[in-house]
C-alpha cells in the first residue's frame, strides 16, 4: 500500500502544498541574519508582546471553548429547523472584514454601553485591555473551533453513547467519558486552529486595543516606523515561538489521550 501509484502522486501533490507553505517561510529565514534575530529576541518589548499574544489567545480559546464545545455537540447531535442557517451564521465571523468585526465589538464595550459602564463601575476600562483583545480574537476565531469540534462529535457513533446510557451513566457522564474523549483529536485540532487564528489577528484587535501591543500589532508598528528590516526578525521570532507552541500542544494533547 505504501508504494502504490496513488500514494506517490499524493505525496507529490502534498509536497507541493508543503513547499508552498514552507518557501515563503524560508524566504523570511534566509533574509534575516541570525544575529538580528538574537538581538530582537532580547528586546523586552518583543518578548512581552509575544508572551502577551500567546497567553491572551490561549485564555480566550480556553474560556470560549467552554461555550463552543457544548454548542458543537448539540449541533452534531440534533437537527432542528433552520439548522443550516445557524451553521451559516457560525461561519460568518470568518468572512467578516476584520476591522468591521473590531468596529462592531467596539460598539459593545466602549464606555457608553452597558458592558462598558459595568466595567467602568469597577474602575476598569475595557478598551485597550486584554479583555478587549481576547474578545476580538475570539470573535474572528471561534468558528474554527466550533466546526472542528462539531465534526469530531459527529464522527462519534451515537450507539456508543446509548450503550453508555444503558450502563446507567448520566448524560453528563456520557459526555465526559465517551463523547468528549472520542472527539478529542478533532477538538484539539479545533483548539489549535482557534488559538493560532486568534494570535494572528490584527485588524480587529488594532481597533479595540493598539496597546498593549500583541505581536501582529507590534510587527505592523515596526514595519510602519522602521521598515521591513526591523519588522522581519520580530515576525520570524513570533512564528518560531508559535511553531514550538503548536508542536508542544499536539504532543501534550496526544499524550493526554494516551494516558486517559
Amino acid at each position: 500500500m505504501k508504494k502504490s501509484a496513488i500514494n506517490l502522486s499524493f505525496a507529490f501533490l502534498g509536497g507541493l502544498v508543503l513547499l508552498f507553505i514552507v518557501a515563503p517561510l524560508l524566504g523570511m529565514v534566509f533574509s534575516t541574519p541570525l544575529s538580528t534575530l538574537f538581538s530582537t529576541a532580547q528586546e523586552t518589548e518583543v518578548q512581552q508582546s509575544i508572551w502577551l499574544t500567546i497567553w491572551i489567545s490561549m485564555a480566550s480559546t480556553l474560556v470560549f471553548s467552554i461555550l463552543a464545545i457544548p454548542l458543537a455537540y448539540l449541533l452534531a447531535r440534533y437537527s432542528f429547523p433552520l439548522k443550516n442557517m445557524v451553521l451559516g451564521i457560525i461561519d460568518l465571523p470568518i468572512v467578516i472584514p476584520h476591522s468591521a468585526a473590531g468596529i462592531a465589538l467596539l460598539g459593545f464595550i466602549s464606555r457608553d454601553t452597558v458592558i462598558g459602564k459595568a466595567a467602568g463601575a469597577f474602575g476598569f476600562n475595557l478598551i485597550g485591555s486584554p479583555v478587549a483583545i481576547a474578545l476580538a480574537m475570539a470573535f474572528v476565531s471561534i468558528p474554527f473551533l466550533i466546526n472542528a469540534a462539531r465534526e469530531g462529535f459527529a464522527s462519534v457513533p451515537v450507539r456508543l453513547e446509548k450503550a453508555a446510557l444503558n450502563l446507567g451513566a448520566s448524560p453528563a457522564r456520557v459526555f465526559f467519558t465517551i463523547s468528549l474523549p472520542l472527539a478529542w483529536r478533532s477538538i484539539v485540532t479545533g483548539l489549535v486552529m482557534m488559538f493560532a487564528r486568534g494570535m494572528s489577528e490584527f485588524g480587529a484587535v488594532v481597533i479595540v486595543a493598539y496597546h498593549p501591543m500583541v505581536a501582529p500589532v507590534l510587527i505592523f508598528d515596526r514595519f510602519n516606523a522602521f521598515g521591513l528590516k526591523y519588522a522581519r526578525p520580530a515576525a520570524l521570532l513570533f512564528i518560531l515561538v508559535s511553531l514550538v507552541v503548536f508542536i508542544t500542544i499536539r504532543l501534550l494533547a496526544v499524550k493526554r489521550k494516551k494516558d486517559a
Partner: protein
Amino acid sequence: HSNQQTNTITIFHAGSLAMPIKAIADSFKVLHPDVTFRLEAAGSVECARKITEFNRQCDIMASADYKIIDELLIPDYADWNVLFSGNEMSLVHTKQSRHANDINGDNWYEILAKPEVSYGRSDPNADPCGYRTLLTLQLAEQHYQKPGLAKAIAEKDNRFIRPKEVDLIALLESGAIDYIFLYRSVAVQHGLEYVTLPDEINLGNPSLSDLYSGVHLRIRGAAVGDSLTLYGEPMVYGITIPSNASNREMAMEYLKLFLHPHKGLKTIEQMGMIPLNPLIIHNEDGMDKDLREELTGHP
C-alpha cells in the same frame, strides 16, 4: 485609575511620523519619567476617524496633511491646528533597483518610462501621497516641457498602486518594483536610497506655492459619486490636541517639546523633514493660552 490616565499620553499619528514622535517621546520621558506613551500609528485619515467615528480618546493627533485636521476634526473634535513641518516628494529606490546607478534628478522620468522598470505609487483617492505624486508628475511635465509625460507615466504600472505608503515599501524592498514616489522623510527614516527632485516639482518649498497651484486634479469626494478638485500646494504636517483629550496638560507639555525649534523640530529635521519656521497656527484663538504663549511668544 485617574492616576494611570494622567500619566499616559495617547498619540494617534500618521505612519510617516512614527520615528520622530517616538524619538521625541523618548526625550520627553527623560524629563517626565513617570509618563508612559501609547503611540498608535495609522493612515492620517484613519487616525481622524478613530476620533470621529469610534469615539476613541487621544491626547494628540498628528496628521501628514494639515487639512485632515482642518476638515475632519475642527470644530467638533478639535479647536486648532499647528502646521509644523513640510516634506518633499522624492523618488525612492534601493541599490538593487534597475538603473539605480544612473538615475538622477534630470533623467528620472526617462528611466521610469523604460519598459523593464516598474514603479509604484499610492492611491490618489486613499492617500495624500498618491495625489501628490500625480501633481508632481504634472509639475514635471511643465518643468521639463515634455508634453504627455504625466499621463504616460501615470498610466504605466497601474498594478503597483497601493492604498498606503508602507505597502509600497514592501513592494520595493521585496524587489517587485524598482522605484516608488514617497516623502523624502520616509526614505531617510527607512534607510532607503532616493533621488532628490527639483524644488519646482517636489511640492516641498512653501515659497513656490504659486507655482504649485498651477496644477490640479480631481479625486473622489466626501461621498460615493462626489468628486473634489485639488490644487497643488506645498505639503505640510499638522498636529493638534483633540477636545476630548483626557490628559491635556501632559499633552501640552509634550507639544512644547515637540514644537521647540531647538529640540523637537531639530529631531524632525534630522529625520528628513523640513520644519516650518515660523510655525503656522490655524484657529489660534481657540488654542490654550499657555501653549499659545509658548509657541508664538505672545499671549
